[in-house]
Each structure stands twice: as C-alpha cells, then as structure tokens.
C-alpha cells in the first residue's frame, strides 16, 4: 500500500492531462459544432425560403392561394421549421401556418425585411426568421421561422454525442493507467515486503527460495541484491546476475 503512494502523483498527473484533453476537446467541439450547425440551419432556412419564393411566384400571380397554402404546408414538414408566412407586396398575409392566429409581433413586423432576425413569440418559443423576396419583392415576401429550441436540441445532441465519446475514452484511459500503475506497483510491494522480511530474519533459508528472486527484471535484480547484502552484511561482492541494469 505504501508503494502505491509512489504513484499518487503519477495518477494525478494522468487524470490532469486527460482531463485537460477532454475539457479542451469538448470546448473546441462545442464551439465548432454550435457555430457550424447554427450556420447550416440558417443557410438551410434561407434556402427553404428561397425555394418557396421561387415556386410561389407563378401561383401568386394566378391568385391561387389554396395551392400556395398547400406548398407552404409541405415545407412545414421539414424538421425545425415551425412557421412560414407569405405576405403580399402591400403586407397582406396571403398564406401562413399560425394556429390559433398570427402573433402580434409578426403582424407588427416589417414584412419586406429579408435579413435574419431572432424572434421570441409568446407561447411558441424562440425562432430565427429569414425571408426571401418573391420576384425581387414586387410580388411579396416569404418568411420562414426556424425553431431555435429544435436547433439548440440538435446541437446539444451532436455535442453530447461527441463529449460522451471523449468521456468514454477518458474513462477507459484512466482505468487502463490505473491498471498499468498497479501492474508496476504490485511487484514493488512484494519487493518491499521481502526487504522487510530480510531485515527481520535475513538468515532464514526460506527467504533465499522465493519466486521473486527468479524474476528477470529490475525487481528480481533488487531482490537478489537485497538478499545478497543481507547475507553478506554489507555489499562486499555481488552475484553475477545482479550486477546492473539490463
């Protein structure tokens, strides 16, 4: 047990190094995933808005609003898209997906604006809304709201999976290091016990027949050296096979 103290700082060092690796990797991973996925969702939302805008130009000009609504409804099935609305060039709502009604904040917003804007709609959640003009805005504007909670959940899930993987690897590494340390500590413990026995009863013949003395490593060399010193009483000569390191 005392021998294991020898490795206390080694273990601590391993934990610290691995912990640092996990922490820094996780932070980098969170930053990268968050940034990349947020940007990707925003771009996807913009692409959806543009697709609807491109598809709806002819429909709008024919005033076929049922078909327009049908088109909008299909895009609402895309994961994360929580609302879509199309306004005319005068700001009239021609199609939308809001239930039970169009939120006040949306009603009061600038409908020709197509720049991404973050919205917090009571009872609905937080969204990033992007717009796309229809026929350069002369026929209206398409607005698509991406649920930030869904995006955040997706990002958290992606990050969580990576952090989970890193954590599992850390755990495996720490357990392996403990195992390796114990592998080294166990013969040292036996050597210590052997040295203590030699110190107590160095003339005991049984001490010259231990398996420890047969080891072909540093522990074996030390054991034989301790036996020799104990028997010779002070290192006047050493057996040939304990003469030094390998």
């Amino acid at each position, binding site marked *: 047990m005392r021998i294991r103290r020898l490795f206390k700082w080694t273990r601590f060092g391993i934990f610290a190094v691995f912990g640092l690796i996990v922490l820094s990797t996780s932070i980098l991973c969170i930053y990268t995933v968050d940034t990349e996925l947020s940007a990707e969702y925003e771009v996807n939302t913009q692409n959806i808005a543009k697709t609807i805008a491109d598809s709806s130009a002819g429909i709008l000009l024919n005033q076929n609003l049922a078909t327009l609504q049908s088109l909008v409804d299909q895009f609402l099935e895309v994961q994360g898209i929580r609302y879509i609305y199309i306004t005319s060039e005068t700001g009239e709502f021609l199609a939308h997906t*809001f*239930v039970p009604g169009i939120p006040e904040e949306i009603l009061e917003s600038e409908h020709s604006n197509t720049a991404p804007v973050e919205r917090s709609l009571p009872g609905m959640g937080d969204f990033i809304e992007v717009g796309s003009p229809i026929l350069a805005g002369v026929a209206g504007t398409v607005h698509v709201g991406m649920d930030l909670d869904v995006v955040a959940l997706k990002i958290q899930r992606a990050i969580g999976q990576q952090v989970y993987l890193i954590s599992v690897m850390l755990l495996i590494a720490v357990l392996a290091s403990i195992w390796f340390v114990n592998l080294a500590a166990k013969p040292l413990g036996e050597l210590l016990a052997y040295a203590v026995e030699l110190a107590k009863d160095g003339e005991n013949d049984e001490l010259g027949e231990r398996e420890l003395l047969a080891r072909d490593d540093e522990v074996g060399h030390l054991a034989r050296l301790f036996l020799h010193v104990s028997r010779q009483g002070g290192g006047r000569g050493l057996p040939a096979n304990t003469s030094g390191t390998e």
Partner: protein
Amino acid sequence: MQCSLEPGASPDGKWGPLVTRKSLMRSGLAALLVAPFTASALVAGRGQESGGSEAESSDRAEGRGATDEEIVLGVSAAFSGPSRGLGTELYRGAMAYFNHVNENGGIEGRRVSLRLYDDGYQPDPCVQNTMRLMLEDKVFSLFGYVGTPTVTRVLPILKKFQDEKIFLFFPFTGAQPQREPPYGEFAFNLRASYNQETAGLVDNLVQVGRRRIAVFYQIDAYGRSGWAGVRAALDKHGERLAGEATYSRGEKFTGSMRKQVEILQGVAPDAVICIGAYAACAAFARDAVDLGLDVPIANLSFVGSENLLKLLTEGQDDAERYTRQLINSQVVPSYEDTSIPAVQEYRDLMARYDPQVPADLVEEEYAPFPHSFGSLEGFLNAKLMGEILRRLGPNPDRAGLEEAVFSIEDFDLGISERVSFGPDRRQGLQSVYHTVVEEGRFVPLDDWGVRFG
C-alpha cells in the same frame, strides 16, 4: 344486392376489394423486398390480389381501365379519423346509385365498382393511394375524392400522367385548384365552388347589415381556399376581413377552440364564417356560444352538416342555444324536399340498399345518417358518372372520357338545375342553398333579414 364488383373483397363479398392502409403498407413492404428478385412474379401477384382475371390485367395493362365485366373507379377518401363521416356519407350515397345500376344490368353489361382506399383526410396517404390506383389497380378514372388538402396534392400526379387520360371526377371539395389552370383540365366538378358558397354567405350577411365578417378556418389548402373566397367576396363590397383565427386539421370536438373564439371576440365581428370540418367547427360554435360570441356562425357545405348538428345537440339540455345562430351553405338541395325527383330517388335507393362502408375500412365506430347532404351529393355524383359512362358506348375507353363529359348539355339530374359541361365549363352545378337549424334539423333559410337582420 351485389353491387360491386370485384371478387374476393369484403367478408360479405359485397363491396369490392378492400385495401386498408395497413394491408397496403404490408404489401408495399413485401413488394419492395421481393422486387429485385421477382419482378415478373410481382406483376402476377398484384393481379391476383385485386381479384382480376388475366384478361382483366391485360385490358388494364393496355390502358382501357375497364374489362368486359366491369368498370373500376378509384376512390381515396376519409374513412377514418375525425372527418370519417365525410367520406362515409359520400360513399354511401354513391353506392346507393351504383348498386341500383349494377342490379339492373350495369352499364352496357358492365358493373361499376369502386376500389376504395382510406386516406384519413391526409395528403400523403392520398397521394400514395392515388399512385396505387393509377399504376397498380389501373382504374378507369378517379372518383369521389374527399377534401382540398388531399385533392390539391393529387392534381400534379394527374398532370404527370396526363397521357393516361385518368381524370378526377366530382371531388368533394369546392376549392379552386381543380377548377383553374394549370390543373383544371384534369378534373370535373359537379358541386358549386367555395368561391360561390362564400360569396353567397357574404352577400347575404352584408345585405342584412353584417359587414364585419371574420373567418375561422382550417389552416391548410381548404381553409385558405375558403378564406380567399370570403376575402374576394368582401372586397366586392368594399370590406376587408374583420379578423381571422385558425385551427389544425384533425382537431376533435373534444378539443378547445377558446383561444380562437377570444381572438375573434377581439375584433367584434358581426358574423363568423367557418371553413372547416364538422368536429372543429362544432367545437368552435360550442365555445363561441359559451364565451358569449353571439353572432351568426356560417359553415360551408364541406363541414358535414348532420355530423355538426349531432355533435352540438347530442346530450344537450338546451341544444337550441348552440344551433340558433348556425347558417350552413349547401351545394345540393334539401334531402327533405321529396318534391324533387332526384331526392325521392335518392331516398328510395338509400332505403333499399343502405350501403355501408366495408368493414375492413372501418377503424372507428361511425353511425351513418339515413339521409344527409353528403350522401345526396354522393348520389348525384354517381348518377352523373353513370350517365357519362353510358355515353362512352359499348367500348369504354379513357380516351373518350373527355368527349363524353362534354356531350353533357342541359342534362336533367332530377334536381331543378340542369347540368352542362364543356371545355371551358368543368363544373356542372352552380347553385348554393342556405340552411338553418329548426327543430333539430337543417331547413332552407328563406329570409335572412328576419333571422339575422
């Protein structure tokens, strides 16, 4: 009475092949799994599944869509879900007529059969059903579809396969997409449009001084179609929508519409026009009355009047409280008016055959009405379809369908209005009727001023 048609179908052998969504998915999955290995066997398997003979398969493969024994029409409609009453009633009315035709020798010796699929009033299943009806079942034409969101999604398929000359006959929707380019040429409508229904409601409401009109609608293509109709009708009177509230398709009567009522109360409307199905519209009418929104509440024909009334009155001590402000527009005359020959015929055949939806399609209990506006519409649809098939002559071919339809001029369906079709006239009837609830049933509204002025 054996009405329909294809052998090996329902347990009682009465109504033709029954294909539920479950069995469709099972067979579809199986087909996908074996397709790479046994393509030829699969084709044969489909023929056996539909109960057709080799000659039948051959005929259909050639694109005729009919055999020497029968003409198969494909139906995708709501037989399950909160709107199952719509598909059920429409089907019952149609089958009452087709049973009668088949019992009397069919059309040129051919029985008329309906191949039914349930779409639950949902667009995606409807699209899948349509693909199967067209590509696998090779039906003669599509008939009696239910709903705007479903039909709207099917129209592009008809355009895609326009060379097959498969037309959609008499869908249970008054929306514009199947009445206008680019898809209007692939469908034939019998009923008046939602634009006509909403214009009728708006004109009469405005006439009695109710100018602030709000809309409660289903947030899909159907609701938008009605919303656009109300908006356009108000525009003619120099008015705008006073307000709007929405609900999601599939809402049940047990759901709350209080938020919607509160939104509309905020704009103080003189009347509300609902564009929805019976469960949600009944819930809205109930909550409107409970919250004190005491204005006329109008519904379109699609709502399913009898089901709406049943929900609002069943188990109510003071049922009149919930129904006295109701106005329902209809696209067929009252089924109570037996002075109309077609109504008398409809009532006779409904009593005689009392058609039921095949048991395999029934997932939830539904008690059909002896008579309803929906089943009367289905009956009239079938009657006109029968006439069109007759005009195809002894060798019915899809290629001649359009010509046969256009030959219908001043045709007497047995109601006061005569039916005509032409290249620029793809809707047979134009009349809209208005009804209110009296003594627990819908009766014609004679005087708007007295009732709602």
